[in-house]
């Protein structure tokens, strides 16, 4: 973590909360949670509200599929923290072997054609946004992806193009696999608000 005030908390209440959660869970509170507690009056509420709606609200995609999309955006953006965090949640809803096959090469992974063509759309959007055309969206819809599903997937990718960037710019500490798993359980139970 590059900013000390985020590491320790910017208010007495936050500092106490960081200590209590870390003690009770037996693991260092992940930096993603420390950011959520920090400078609350700035963008936190707007970001959390959209994030919770996109990742846990009604959608044509399962929670596991949306978490897989988040992990894929993190993979394309080389964000180690976010790959670990969202892989750990995705494997609770999607077979771990399938999640790992997607991370290795989603084009050959055993997934549905609509999910595969959606990932093609999200990869272009993430790595070459200036190249994204209506034809990319049309390809997805012609494969059976509804407009609402594609909009939901694009929202997941937009948010994780934000999260991966601040995670790496702030140099989030990488938790252990056990810590990622504990955090995954909490994010499934409580969501992103």
């Amino acid at each position, binding site marked *: 973590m590059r900013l000390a*005030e985020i590491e320790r908390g910017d208010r007495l209440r936050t500092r106490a909360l960081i200590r209590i959660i870390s003690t009770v869970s037996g693991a260092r509170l992940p930096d993603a949670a420390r950011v959520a507690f920090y*400078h609350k009056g700035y963008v936190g509420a707007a970001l959390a509200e959209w994030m919770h*709606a*996109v990742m846990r609200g009604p959608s044509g995609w399962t929670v596991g599929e949306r978490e897989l999309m988040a992990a894929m955006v993190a993979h394309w953006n080389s964000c180690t923290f976010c790959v670990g965090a969202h892989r750990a949640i995705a494997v609770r809803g999607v077979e771990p072997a399938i999640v790992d096959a997607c991370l290795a090469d989603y084009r050959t992974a055993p997934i549905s054609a609509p999910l595969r063509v959606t990932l093609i759309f999200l990869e272009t959007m993430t790595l070459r946004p200036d190249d994204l055309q209506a034809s990319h969206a049309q390809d997805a819809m012609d494969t059976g992806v509804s407009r609402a599903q594609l909009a939901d997937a694009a929202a997941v990718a937009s948010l994780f193009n934000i999260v991966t960037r601040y995670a790496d710019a702030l140099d989030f500490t990488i938790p252990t696999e056990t810590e990622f798993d504990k955090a995954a359980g909490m994010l499934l139970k409580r969501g992103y608000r």
Partner: protein
Amino acid sequence: MNPIDLHQRHADRLRAAATGASGQTAESVRIAALTRAAGGAPIDKPYDGLAQQIRDAAWRVTDAHVAAVRAATGSDKGAFEIIMAASIGAGLARWDAAARAIDEAGDAAS
């Protein structure tokens, strides 16, 4: 409701929060960082180096990029605001591109 409109409202709210009165740094600096990371023209140093790196490859941001912006803003909160504004700019530029592509496509599936 149009599925794009639902997310667009959230995107607009996030953009307004990043650049609005709730920040401690000058709004003009946050707007510049957000716009730069969305593909805009170069901005003043040291903000330009950090915003550009966040846009192109955030995993290559260095301690020096952040320290320079921390010194320029005078606080951790100031540096945090610039990092968030740039990250949000890069993410929302992708939302804008996706929403436009989806909007211009037909809908064979629903």
